[in-house]
């Protein structure tokens, strides 16, 4: 959603009824009009690109958990991977502290990779079965040559020397230093950053005032420090030292996920993308991992993007929630607000589909028809228009509600047919100009319209569309029906509407003159039209 500066500061003003908010939160990351397309054009296929992420804008605030929900194929995983640099953005910007991070190279990219981490649904994806768990967690430390051991010298202007340590850039603040040497008139004082598995005793320092040099040597090798770091991480995620030497296959699913989390934490990141971290786990194990993630966040002050299809899990862990459909964010707001009073018909449908009494939705289940369209070929207007239970119907006094819905569905059938991947045989039939089995078209029409009375104009249009479809022109048939019976939702991509402070959605029903989504769905359930 387009999020002009200053409008999205929910975290600063949010309702205090939910979890405590970090009141001074700044965006850690600002995403604007981000697009990630997969283009697999080869000599043989000229398919349009898969528009996995198709123009999303949002902020993630320092220290918060932003939940990202949606069904498989909606682009939520691609979005997460793009933020941490595992996919390249096709267009748009991702800024962290004012710096663009999608297009970094060399040292800057490595620096960004240290600050962000990712936890995957299937821990096996990030664990090598031939490596011990300790080696797996150590791998990012080795790859980045952690620790870097930057040394800051305070009090005098001096050069730093030493084989394993690096001098810290003076401009950079001393709080990034692992080792600080404070020199005053007659003496000096050494301190070591607390979070490092290194004590003051491991560091020996000599100060040569004449040549203005401070030489620092560290008694422990980097390998030792890394090992101890891994032990700390194992402990942090609820495992222990003996697990270092075991192999992933000796672990349960919950333990493997703990290892995945330890690995993601290795380089002391500030921001974690958690991609379905508990979906593969049993409910009792899932609860333990969720609690662990919350503890770690509080302790280390981390910022989370929590991606999941399970809405109950997201409600539990997230401060704010973004709902994604077909590459777009259709609603974003404070979790409790969105869950108790959804604005977008898709959010409403998702909530109503949660089974059991744990569901926040008390009304009837809204059954969505069909499946999401292909992200290669998203609908022209609102991405949700082909399935929306609250779609705005056109002003056509001659068509009753039922008939209009049937015609709308017929259009979706033609649209689906025109997009279907044809078998080789069908493609060949098309090439030699053979006709489509007319019976199948007629049956589809018959199925939906039956012996419904259509106004003469409408009947003529339908006949024309059927004729086109019988000759294999499904796309034209769909277009014809769209022109005749389509609604605003088929033509306009809805703007971002602001419902409340920090609560936005993209549904045309927000405009005055329309009933809101929940009322519409309710009324249609009762069948009194719109």
């Amino acid at each position, binding site marked *: 959603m387009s999020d002009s500066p200053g409008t999205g500061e929910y975290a600063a003003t949010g309702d205090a009824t*939910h*979890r405590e908010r970090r009141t001074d939160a700044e965006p850690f990351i600002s995403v604007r009009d981000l697009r990630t397309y997969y283009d697999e054009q080869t000599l043989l296929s000229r398919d349009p690109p898969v528009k996995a992420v198709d123009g999303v804008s949002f902020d993630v605030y320092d220290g918060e958990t932003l939940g990202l929900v949606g*069904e*498989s194929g909606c682009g939520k995983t691609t979005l997460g991977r793009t933020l941490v640099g595992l996919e390249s953005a096709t267009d748009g910007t991702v800024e962290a502290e004012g710096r663009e991070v999608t297009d970094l190279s060399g040292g800057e990219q490595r620096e960004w990779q240290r600050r962000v981490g990712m936890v995957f649904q299937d821990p096996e994806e990030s664990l090598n079965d031939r490596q011990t768990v300790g080696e797996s967690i150590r791998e990012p430390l080795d790859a980045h040559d952690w620790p870097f051991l930057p040394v800051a010298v305070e009090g005098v202007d001096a050069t730093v020397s030493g084989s394993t340590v690096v001098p810290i850039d003076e401009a950079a603040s001393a709080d990034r230093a692992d080792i600080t040497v404070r020199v005053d008139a007659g003496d000096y004082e050494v301190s070591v950053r607390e979070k490092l598995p290194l004590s003051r005793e491991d560091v020996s320092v000599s100060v040569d005032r004449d040549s203005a040099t401070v030489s620092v040597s560290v008694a422990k090798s980097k390998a030792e420090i890394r090992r101890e770091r891994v032990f700390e991480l194992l402990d942090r*995620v*609820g*495992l*222990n030292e003996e*697990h270092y030497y*075991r192999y992933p296959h*000796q*672990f*349960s699913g*919950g*333990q493997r996920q*703990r290892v995945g989390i330890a690995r993601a934490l290795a380089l002391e990141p500030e921001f974690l993308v958690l991609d379905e971290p508990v979906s593969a786990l*049993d*409910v*009792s*194990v*899932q*609860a*333990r991992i*969720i*609690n662990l993630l919350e503890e770690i966040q509080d302790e280390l002050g981390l910022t989370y993007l929590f991606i999941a*299809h*399970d*809405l*109950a*899990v997201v*409600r*539990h*862990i997230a401060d704010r929630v973004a709902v994604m459909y077909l590459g777009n964010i259709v609603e974003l707001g404070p979790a409790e607000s969105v869950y108790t009073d959804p604005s977008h018909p898709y959010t409403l*449908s*998702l909530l109503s*589909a*949660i*089974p*059991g*009494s*744990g*569901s926040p939705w008390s009304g009837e*289940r809204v*059954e*969505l*028809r*069909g*499946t999401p369209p292909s992200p290669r070929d998203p609908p022209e207007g609102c991405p949700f228009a082909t399935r929306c239970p609250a779609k705005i119907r056109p002003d056509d006094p001659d068509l009753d509600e039922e008939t209009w819905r049937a015609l709308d569905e017929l259009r979706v*059938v033609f649209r*689906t*047919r025109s997009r*279907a*991947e044809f*078998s080789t045989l069908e493609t060949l039939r098309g090439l030699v100009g053979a006709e489509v*089995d007319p*019976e*199948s078209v007629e*049956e*589809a029409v018959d*199925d939906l319209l039956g012996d419904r009375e259509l106004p003469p104009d409408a009947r003529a249009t339908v006949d024309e569309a059927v004729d086109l479809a019988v000759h294999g022109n499904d796309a034209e048939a769909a277009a014809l029906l769209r022109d005749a019976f389509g609604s605003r939702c088929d033509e306009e991509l809805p703007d971002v509407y602001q419902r409340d402070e920090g609560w936005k959605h993209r549904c045309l029903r927000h405009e005055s003159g329309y009933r809101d989504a929940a009322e519409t769905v309710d009324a249609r359930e009762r069948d009194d039209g719109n």
Partner: protein
Amino acid sequence: MSDDASAADRPGVDPLLRVEDLRTVFYTEREEIHAVDGVSFDVHEGETVGLVGESGSGKSVTARSILGLVDEPGRIEEGAIYYRGEDLTDDNWDTHRGDIAIVFQDPGGSLNPVYTVGNQIREALRIHQGLRGSEARERAVDLLEDVGIPDARRRVDEYPHQLSGGMQQRAVIAMALACDPDLLVCDEPTTALDVTIQAQILDLLAELQREENLAILFITHDMGVIEDATDRVNVIYAGEVVERGPTEALFESPQHPYTRALLDSIPGRTPPDEQLPTIEGEVPTPAGPATDCRFAPRCPAAVDACRTVHPEHYDVGEAGTDRTAACLLHGDAHHYSFEEALADPEGLGRHGRARESRTDGGDRS
């Protein structure tokens, strides 16, 4: 779903399916695993019975046992599976091959990728109903329409990969219906599907049940799905049913500590700002006959006796509702409520039960 939740209470009516003390054992080189260890339940005509448990609880092995699909090194060692009064374990599976159909979690695995959907349904129709040619074709299209596949006449000629996951599962259900079964065993039928698609499939199953008076045995780990989809439910833990009852009553007031803990750990049932209650430890692998309560090491209300006595099922509901729990809390010796047991474990005669504390806090390997 049938309205009378107390279908078990019909006097003089034989259940469609009666599983009695079923024991299925797997023999590996190192150990024997009692995957299903004395499971009993009934399924009556037209009702949906749930079997809910975590992975490794033995619920899928129960399903496979009913269908006669247990492969080496597994064997049904004891117990009976009566279908309309006839024991299937006396090698009667082939006589009832079409009466019981199964729908698995992964629809892709149930469909052959090299044949069209229509081919596969026609094959089932030929075997089970002797239909051939255009008759079979028409029936296949009808079945696809029955399971809510739009544009069925076109879809019948498509290959499985051309259908989405939800459509594939519908096609699998259509194949299952092609045998005209009286009992449909659904083993995690919606687990691989998105929540809106899951809702569609649950509605479809409920509708088919109404129209065909189909009995459904619904197996899943998802308590929410069980709550919506079943009339009666059996909670299974480490190969044993630990609690059973009408779904609504069981969810309203679970009587076994495991059921209680399982329900508590679902995120939707705890306020977002509170920590989720958890169950420490893991589901054990039943490596021998039970001599104790298998949940005792993880149970917050366990007493000394729980480690030495294998609990039988006690009635915990209104008479005639087939509502039982296998927990000593409900035995004659104690009969404490769960709350009382937690508040005053000493009162149960416990003397310093060594509570297993985990220094690692993790799930033990």
